Structure formats: C-alpha cells, structure tokens
C-alpha cells in the first residue's frame, strides 16, 4: 500500500465512518449538547457580518463542491466552453472571498468581544482555525492553479477537508446535522399527549 492509497483510499473513508458513528453516538448519549450554540444574544452586530456572509458563502461553496464531487463530468462538460468556465471561476472566486471574509469576521469577533470570549471554548477556536486553513487553501488553489475547478483535487485541501469531516462529531459542527427541514411540512402547533400515545422523539 502506498502513501497515496493510505491518504486517499483509506483516510477519507475512515473519516466519514468515524464522523457518522461519532455523530450518532453523540446524539444518543448526549443529545443536550446538540446545539448551534448561538451567541447572538451577547453580541449581534459583528455576528451579522460574520455569520451571514460565512453561512451563505460556505453553503453555496459546499453545494458546488458536492456537485463536482458526485458528478465530475457535468462540471467538466459545462466548463468545456471557455466563457462558461470564466463564469464558473468568477462566481466561485467571489463566493470564496465572501466566505473567507465572513470567517475572518467570526474569528475577530471571538477575540474582540469580552462577552463572546466567555462562551468561547478551545474547540471553537480550533474549529475556526481549521476552517480558516480550509477556506484559505481553497482560495489559494483557485487563484494560483488556473483553472482550479477543472482540477480534480488539491492534496492539502482534500486532506484538511476530510479532517474537518472527522471532527464534526467532536465540535459544534454537529449543528448542521440538525438542520430543521421537518419544519417545512410540519403543522405550526405541536401537542404532546401523555396518555394517548407514546411520545417518540420530536
């Protein structure tokens, strides 16, 4: 087995498996800790600039990556025409800068507000730094390896990405596993009966 096999054949699957098992384990054993741990209540202005830019950016970027990952041919055939490639690159680049800007704001906020420092754990800082490495290397790839989106991968970006997947169950990142999609179709009001039927989950 070569290093390549180990890094790109074994490590990613290991990360994904640990992430899934870890999240399930955490959900079953310590459901209380599943939370977005919002800190808007203590500081709202900086959060607006940080959180909105970051989330809109990262969600768009992740979606594009996911499409590229699952259907590489789609992206390649789309990019076959230069004009389309430029559009793709420009959009990707703007989004990436947006994401990076938001993330930097979030990091600044973690250190600059005394109230926010009180609710900042070591893990929060570690996570923000991991994300910074990820987004920064991603932007760097896009800038200096023309044209980045036609490349299948950049080693560092990919490895750090799987590292991020790995730490999901051990950080606040679990919050995006509980995106409340059920809200879209559930009725507004919820009534729980103690006697009529057992209350299973919610």
């Amino acid at each position, binding site marked *: 087995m070569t290093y390549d096999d180990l890094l790109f054949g074994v490590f990613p699957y290991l990360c994904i498996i640990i992430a899934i098992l870890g999240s399930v384990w955490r959900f*079953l*054993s*310590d*459901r*209380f*800790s*599943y*939370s*977005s*741990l*919002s*800190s*808007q*209540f*203590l*500081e*709202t202005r900086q*959060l*607006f600039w940080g*959180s*909105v830019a*970051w*989330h*809109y950016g990262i969600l768009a970027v992740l979606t594009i990556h996911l499409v590229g990952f699952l259907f590489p041919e789609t992206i390649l055939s789309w990019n076959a025409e230069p004009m389309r490639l430029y559009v793709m690159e420009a959009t990707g680049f703007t989004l990436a800068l947006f994401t990076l800007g938001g993330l930097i704001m979030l990091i600044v906020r973690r250190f600059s507000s*005394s*109230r926010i*420092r*009180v*609710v900042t*754990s070591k*893990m929060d800082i570690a996570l923000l730094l991991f994300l910074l490495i990820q987004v920064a290397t991603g932007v760097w790839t896009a800038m200096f390896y023309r044209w980045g989106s036609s490349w299948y991968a950049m080693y560092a970006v990919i490895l750090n990405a799987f590292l991020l997947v790995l730490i999901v169950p*051990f*950080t*606040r990142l*679990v*919050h995006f596993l*509980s995106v*409340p999609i*059920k*809200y*879209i179709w*559930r009725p*507004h*009001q*919820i*009534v*729980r*009966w*103690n*006697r*009529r039927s*057992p*209350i*299973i989950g*919610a």
Partner: protein
Amino acid sequence: MDVRAQTSMMFHLDKCIGCHTCSVACKNIWTDRKGTEYMWWNNVETKPGTGYPTKWEDQEKYKGGWVPKEETIKLRVADKASTFANIFHQPHLPTIDDYYEPWTYKYSDLFDAPAGDDQPTARPISLITGEHMDINAGPNWDDDLSGSTVYANNDPNYEKLTEAEKQALSELERLVFFYLPRICNHCLNPACVASCPSGALYKRGEDGIVLLDQNVCRAWRFCVSACPYKKTYYNWKTGKSEKCILCFPRVESGQPPACFHSCVGRIRYFGVVLYDADKIESIASAPENELVERQREMILNPFDPAVIAQAEKDGVHFSVIEAAQKSPVYRFVKEWELALPLHPEFRTLPMLFYVPPLLPVLGHVENGVYDVDATDYFTSLDKARIPMRYMASLFTAGNEEQVRGVLEKLLTVRMYKRAEQVDDIDSAQVEAMLKKTGLTAEACEEIFRLTSLPTFEERFVIPPTHQEYTAELTVGDPYAFKAEVGVGGFKGSPERGW
C-alpha cells in the same frame, strides 16, 4: 367540537402590591443557574412603564405574535421560508442589553483592600464577563415610576393616547401607577411553539401547559423573537432556550405553582377551563375588536351536559371536568366577564387573564389641601386618572367600551358592599348600577367573596394528574417511556456541548 382542558390563570390587579415575592420564589427555584441570571420567568412591572425586556410590547421592534394574512394569520417574525433565510442571524432577536447585564459586587475587596485613607468599596462586576461594569439597567429599574421620564414616557401604550393625556400623566398631582405581574400565558395559539423550527416547544395535551424540550432545542432562538410577551428566554451559557414551566412538577403533585403559592396579596387564581380546540385558528384570526369576546366564547360551560358528554368522549377525565366546574378562573373570565387577556391583539390566545385595576379618581388641590370628592369617589370612572384608552390598549385591543364595562362591574360590587356595610350610598343608585351592568345582588356577593375572602382551596383548584393512567401504559415494558420524561439519554446532564 374537540373539547380539551386548559390550565388557566387569573391575576387580580387591584390586589397586587408590587412586592416581587412571586419573582423571587420563581428565581430561587428555577433560574438561579449560570446563564439564567437575567431571566425572570415571573416579573412584575410598573405601568406606565417600558417593562421587561425594555419595550417588549412594541412589536415593530421585536416582531412577536401573529398578524392577519388573508383569511387566516401568520407569524410576524418569519414565515417558513424566511425562517431558513434568517436562521444564521436573526434581525429582531433581543440581546442581553434589552434586558440588563446581570451583576454582583466584588465583596472580597472589602476585606482584601490594602490599608488606605478611603473606605474600601465593593464595585459591581458583570456576572457574564466578571469585569467591572457600570450598572445602568436592572430588574425593576423603573419600579414605582422611578426614572419615569425615560421609562413611563416611553410606554408603548402611550401611542394610543392624545398629547394632552400623555402630558397629564406626568403631572405630579396626577401621577398614578399600577403593577403588572407577568408569567408565560400558556397560550392556546402559542407563537413560541409555532416558530420553533426544531419542534422543541409543545403544548401538553392533557393540561395545556407549554413546555420546551431542551434535548430537541438547537438554539435557532426563533421562540424568543416570536413570543410577543417575551416569555421564552435564551440561556447564553448552555446554548438552549428556557421558559416558565407553570411549575408542572408542583402542579402534578397537587400544589399551585410557586409564584401563585407565595403571592402575598393573594392576587393569583388557578384553575382549568374547558375549551373547543377546533376553534383555535378561526378565533385567533378574528377581527381585532372581537378577539376578547370570541376567546371567551371558545371557553365552554362545564355544567352543560352536551359539553360534559363531548369532553368525556375526547378523553377529558371526569375529575378534570369537576375541577373545571369549581374553577375560579372560569367564574371571573366567563361567568362574570371580569377578567381580560393581556394584549389580545397579539393573537396567541393567552390563557392568563387579568382583572384590570380600578384606579383612584382624580382629586383636586384647594387652598393647598388635596381632596377627593367623597360623593363621587365610588361612582365616577371618567375621573379615573389613567385614561380608559390606556387600559383598552393593554387589555382589549383598543375596545374602550369593553374595559369600561368591566370597571363598571367592579365599581358596582364596591357600591353594593359599601351600601350594605356603611350605608352612605343611596340604594336607588346601587339598583341603577346593578341594572346597568346586569349583575345581581347574589353575583356581587359572590364576586366580593371570591375577591376578598377566598380560601387557598378556592383560589387554587388543581385537578389530579392521574399518574396511575400513565403508569398503566408502561405495564409490560417499564422502560417504554425511558428518555421521554425527565432528563433522558445515557448521560443527559444539562451542560454546554463541546
């Protein structure tokens, strides 16, 4: 018809002395933890005033409650689509500064300060950051109209008043205030429940208590914005929201909630009412000036055989129906129509009702002597120092006739008793008032009794919880409900996550 039982409450504002015993009782039991220092699930505010959190009634600012939309209603804070758009940052979420920054004092300085010429002082330090802070707001900062130029004059209900009325309220000779104790209203159409994307909040089917399941809460914090009464709170330490639980562990064991039990003025009444759950949506969507009446209409007569039959069919236990028949809340709200909901125009159908205060009439100063017209003392509502419009803004969505009707009834009871006990009021005058308000002599007597001389058991009529039925469900598998009650899961200690 879908008959359900709702645990309901009534506060008699004429009896509230603003002592805050209720608030302290609640705080000592439920909110003495880190992250909850600023929370007052029960608070008592001075009216006129801006309240807690500051200007909570101003829904232009906080976007709480429901607003009409076509034939029905929608949440003001966000519809389902904008919930997802605003989840990363909520534009209308109150922050700690809308309540106040909790603090303590650095008492150790009193002992540890080096010898010097000055007395050592214990400076205030923030309970959040631990740093020194200047206190510029606190719980009941505006008690008894203190700082009224800042607080009373910014009361959101003043918007309904004329300039002259506003001016008059700040004249020294006319100053008047009353207390408004507030807890969660355990609404029939709770905005908190409806707004929670995770579905963490729910209404209990059997008794209507509104609770928040912290194991489901993910700190999307929409409940905080959506509750127009600002009675859900965000715990910044644990990253979970919390709210008044109507002391369900006490209620389930036959005791009234702590704030009710401890109330010194005995202003609080507790009992169930039966209501028709099929009507919730249509009544919450009614035109503003009909809301009070329609909500009253929704409450069913527990003596009506048809209601009893349907209630039993819908699974309401007979002992609960019996409790509804003895409920003091039913008498004040439905039978005598004396108690009104707070800000019905928020459309959550709150189930805490208030008997509005009968404030003193305006006296006059003559030759430097303050005097009230003794003959008019018990009769004139028009000379009341708080404009009727203000009361209407609080309790009837602006319908002045409705508040006036209630206050006239309260006056009638007083006149009736005064005529009986002191005999200085013309009986024809009393008769006229009885006729006008539609009260009978017996009703006056009963209102007087339940207002002034009720026993503990008359104020608090708590139906049995029937744990035995719940226990029966576990026959065969005693673990069937594990992790569904109490703090579930393998670990389940309420601590902040990693």
